[in-house]
């Protein structure tokens, strides 16, 4: 009998890797949080960095959420070990999904969060070490709760052929928390679609 998700998701859900047991003594070099309990998913991800080589040497996490949210954070924590910061920064939700052998479409937003938590952790590392990098593609943040930028929205519209605000929400969970950015997001979508 098939399980709800792929065997890979099952494995990472049943035996999650790299759980953060003791944050105080972990001494992370970078820390990233994303999501919101109200929406049902919230992730905390911490990294250790080899400062000479600019490589992520370790990654641990904690997640509040469904099975695929837990599995996607777990698999991400495995993926990033040994990766350069630049490489890790470029991880897309699609990469995490592929690593998990796929996820149902309505579950995509869960893994979308994992890569964002990671970027927040890397940004945090840069900030702590006064490293000036082109962070967040120098793009304006539209949704503060979910940390979604204008560039991300534009890319999604282009890549996924998004036509409605609801579709955009499916992909990003934009304005699903406090909702204050909904008008701005709708305007941006309208502008992009009219181009």
């Amino acid at each position, binding site marked *: 009998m098939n399980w709800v998700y792929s065997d890979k998701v099952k494995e990472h859900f049943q035996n999650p890797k790299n759980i953060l047991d003791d944050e105080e003594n972990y001494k992370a070099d970078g820390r990233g949080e994303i999501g919101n309990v*109200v929406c049902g998913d919230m992730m905390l991800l911490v990294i250790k960095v080899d400062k000479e080589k600019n490589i992520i040497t370790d990654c641990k996490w904690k997640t*509040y959420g*469904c*099975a695929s949210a837990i599995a996607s954070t777990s698999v991400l924590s495995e993926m990033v070990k040994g990766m350069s910061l630049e490489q890790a920064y470029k991880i897309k939700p699609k990469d995490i999904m592929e690593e998990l052998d796929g996820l*149902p479409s*309505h579950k995509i937003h869960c893994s979308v969060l994992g890569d964002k938590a990671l970027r927040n952790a890397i940004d945090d590392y840069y900030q702590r070490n006064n490293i000036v990098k082109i962070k967040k593609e120098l793009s304006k943040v539209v949704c503060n709760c979910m940390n979604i930028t204008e560039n991300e929205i534009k890319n999604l519209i282009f890549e996924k052929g998004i036509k409605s605000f609801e579709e955009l929400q499916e992909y990003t*969970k934009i304005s699903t928390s406090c909702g204050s950015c909904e008008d701005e997001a709708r305007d941006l979508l309208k502008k992009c679609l009219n181009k």
Partner: protein
Amino acid sequence: MKRTVYLDNNATTPIHPEVKKAIVEALALYGNPSSMHQQGRMANNAIEGAREKIASFIGTEPENIIFTGSGSEANNTVINYIYCNVPDCNICDRKNKHYNKHIITSAIEHPSILQTLKCYERRGVKVTYLPVDKFGTVAPNDVKKAIKPTTCLISIMFANNEIGTIQPVKEIAEIARHHNIYFHTDAVQATGKIHINVHDLNVDFMTMSGHKIYGPKGIGLLYVKKGIKLCPLIYGGHHEKNRRAGTENTIGIIGVGKAFELLSKEMDANNKKILALKQKLKKGFLEKIPDISFNGQQENSLPNTLNVSFDYIEGESILLSADFEGIAVSTGSACSTGSLKPSHVIMALGVSPEKAHGSIRFGLGRENTEEDIDYVLDKFPPIVEKLRKISSVYK
């Protein structure tokens, strides 16, 4: 083999072995119940026998029972009938054919009421969705206050499927009677768990379903009070006295008839046993798992339903972890539904979205045993502990 404990009897119930036997026998009755030859008459006799058993179980005459394809269809039939506003319709005999129809319902009804009404709202029907208190109860006084001159239906469920809260149906039915308004109750979850006599209750319409009472799926029932000339939702034949077209589901009807017959024999003993098991489960949870709360009315509620919120963790991951142990439950979390919003029922209680995301429904049934509950109380604490350990919101 690993133990399996089925605690999702509000979603559906396993078929009673005797119902199964009746269904297997019914497979031989291939005649069309509308046909005049002996094959047809045999099927028809069996169907009418089932109808009699069901009618007597709820205290009415057989002609007041209509077989439908589901409880959802029965609910849709009632709303569709109320909506009809053809002034000189020769099928139905609706009084008060207002053009601005108003319907009163509650915020915690089944989607087959709520989504149907959303659609009829777009067709011009006005709907009041009454709030519930923190236990999930509708206040009869709120019903009274919501009545308008154009109100033509009050539809309040008998007992809620997610939290088990029983509504003051009799009081609300009286209010409806007093104002000469039709009253419908969706008794899909209440059937077989509470004694219902439609005559005493004085309801106009009542919905029931086969697969929640150890009967087959694909069969629903609608009680329609004598004298109401219903217009059908499905046209196309003389079946069910012109009230629901479609060749009768002989197998389903015989199955559900048997299920009702068994209820009249076993219901009280089953409910007594089930309630004791639920209390054991609740007590065990309180002793073994910190940071939990119970959703819904605890006193006046279905004997089999326990809805628990586990703080700091999310329902789908609890459900799937329980499933690994062979325990079947359901959740009000958004993640399980594919939407972004958690259960409308739990949210209507005024609890936080976190509590709704972390809610698990235990729906006990006639097959559950003391050992089942011991097993759940053994397996659940480590599941909760494990998920809390990896949760980013658990201190």
